[in-house]
């Protein structure tokens, strides 16, 4: 039994209290500057702002799909699964092989020659996404069994380092020539991109043509990403609120030992959690590849890290937090690209991490770590 000693504030911090106000003042100033930049730009050119907002939304919903995996796994095993971004990458590659090598997206057309072409593309694309999700699930369960499970009772830092190791393994093993190759690979989409522009109504952008000046464009990929991401959120809410395994996930995340006394097979629940997170990341990987159409083995690193920041920002362990954090991250990145400069996007993303850790380490929806007697 542990006896928690009440931490008394060290004297040194009490003396420095005025400095905290300097820090707060700085952050308030920073907030005002950001609000000013965004506000003036919104007034100056609302269409550009709307365009940037749409690309931020697209990015945010992709991050949300990855962030859920981070937050769920953290919630249950208190592990930041740094290999998660690479599972996302494997999802993208799985769909690449399914489409470019095996033409899986065309199977309905070849199996039923008379089929409606739109329906064929729809079924084919869904097949590709589901297959990539399955590949990610198998990969994640394997990783969990091989790398994390033996460390279940080891200090947390061991598992964390192992996660980083698994991440490097996937990136560099994937970069071998007989695996995915180290090159950038142009991604063949299972369906055509269709874009619309909004200017006095919604119009289709004709192939080979540009959208007119001062209009806001969006694509079918944008709609699909939002649709799939929202679907995943709803599915997850249903899972953790209404199903037995979902409630068991929450029980395990609160108290693993008590969960065992209920007859819950905790190892299976943990595997299941990894699998669900990986399935979402897999779907995210496919959609990301479709949207940005270039893949390579380190594709998962930055989206993975940013989704991690999103999960921390929302409050790690919180499912709605992951979505909110991801949407904020997506906007921050898009706004930076649009109004400051593209290379700044990563710097801003990680500055947000630092600010969150300084101001509210538990994130937006997080609660301070409860003290256990």
């Amino acid at each position: 039994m542990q006896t928690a000693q009440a931490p008394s504030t060290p004297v040194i911090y009490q003396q420095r209290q005025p400095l905290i106000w300097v820090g707060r003042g700085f952050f308030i100033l920073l907030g005002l500057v950001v609000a000013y930049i965004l506000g003036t730009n919104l007034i100056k050119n609302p269409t550009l702002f709307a365009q940037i907002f749409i690309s931020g939304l697209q990015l945010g919903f992709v991050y949300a799909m990855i962030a859920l995996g981070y937050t769920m796994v953290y919630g249950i095993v208190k592990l930041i699964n740094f290999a998660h971004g690479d599972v996302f990458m494997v999802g993208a590659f799985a769909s690449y092989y399914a489409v470019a090598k095996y033409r899986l997206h065309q199977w309905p057309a070849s199996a039923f020659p008379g089929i409606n072409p739109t329906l064929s593309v729809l079924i084919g694309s869904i097949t590709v996404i589901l297959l990539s999700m399955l590949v990610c699930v198998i990969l994640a369960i394997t990783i969990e069994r091989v790398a994390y499970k033996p460390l279940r009772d080891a200090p947390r830092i061991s598992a964390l380092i192992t996660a980083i190791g698994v991440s490097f393994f996937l990136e560099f093993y994937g970069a071998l020539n007989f695996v995915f190759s180290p090159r950038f690979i142009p991604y063949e989409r299972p369906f055509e991109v269709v874009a619309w522009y909004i200017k006095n109504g919604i119009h289709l952008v004709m192939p080979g043509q540009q959208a007119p000046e001062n209009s806001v464009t969006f694509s079918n990929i944008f709609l699909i990403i939002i649709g799939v991401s929202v679907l995943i959120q709803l599915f997850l809410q249903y899972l953790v609120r209404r199903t037995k395994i979902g409630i068991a996930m929450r029980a395990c995340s609160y108290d693993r030992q008590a969960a065992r006394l209920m007859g819950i097979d905790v190892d299976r629940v943990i595997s299941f959690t990894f699998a669900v997170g990986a399935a979402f990341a897999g779907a995210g990987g496919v959609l990301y590849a479709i949207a940005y159409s270039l893949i390579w083995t380190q594709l998962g690193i930055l989206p993975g890290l940013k989704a991690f920041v999103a999960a921390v920002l929302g409050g790690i362990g919180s499912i709605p937090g992951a979505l909110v954090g991801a949407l904020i991250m997506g906007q921050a990145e898009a706004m930076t690209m649009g109004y400051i400069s593209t290379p700044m996007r990563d710097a801003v993303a990680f500055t947000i991490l630092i600010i969150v850790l300084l101001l509210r380490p538990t994130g937006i929806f997080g609660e301070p770590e409860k003290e256990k007697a």
Partner: protein
Amino acid sequence: MLLEVHNLNVYYGAIHALQGISFHVEEGEIVTLIGANGAGKSTTLRTISGLLRTRTGYIRYKGRDITNTPAQEIVKMGISHVPEGRKIFAPLTVRENLLMGAYTRNDPNEIQRTMERVFASFPRLKERINQLGGTLSGGEQQMLAMGRGLMSRPTLLLLDEPSMGLSPILVEEIFRIIQEINQQGTSILLVEQNAHMALSIAHRAYVLETGRIVLSGTAKEVAENPMVKAAYLGV
């Protein structure tokens, strides 16, 4: 014999927590293990329910060897452990807590029926069915923990310190309910520091001291033992 525990030796690292514990529980009995803090009472329960492993000896349940069986299998066999400190799932509602108690069972109608029976024993839980476990009072949490333990329809209920941190009136109520549960056919292995209450409802008792059983007998015999009177009953 419902439960037979023979020569358990359990270690926490280098600490020899149980030093050859043997006892048994008959069908329909309330058996209590009493003893001071650190005597090994909770360790005994945790070993039976599969959270800890024993190095020697055996545990037999309904004649079957269940030594070092994983916890989830033990629950399926009909042993339910209500842990010390209640350990309810604070972020889950009362209903969800109870459903977790029935995790090993699959028939929703049967589970619903058991839940109704639990509500009959603990009407207060029904009033709070959609409240989060963490918002309940200490007494209600104890009721929830016991109700949750009953949801697997156990033949043997292991209760660890059900009176801990409760007011005397609540302790009376909890012990009355324990007797009720027993009369409905569930055998009970009760671990208590409140020796007086435990001995008042138990059929038989064992006294633990630093990992060893130092005394055993019917509850009445144990209660009248001068050593027990001096050390545990404060007479």
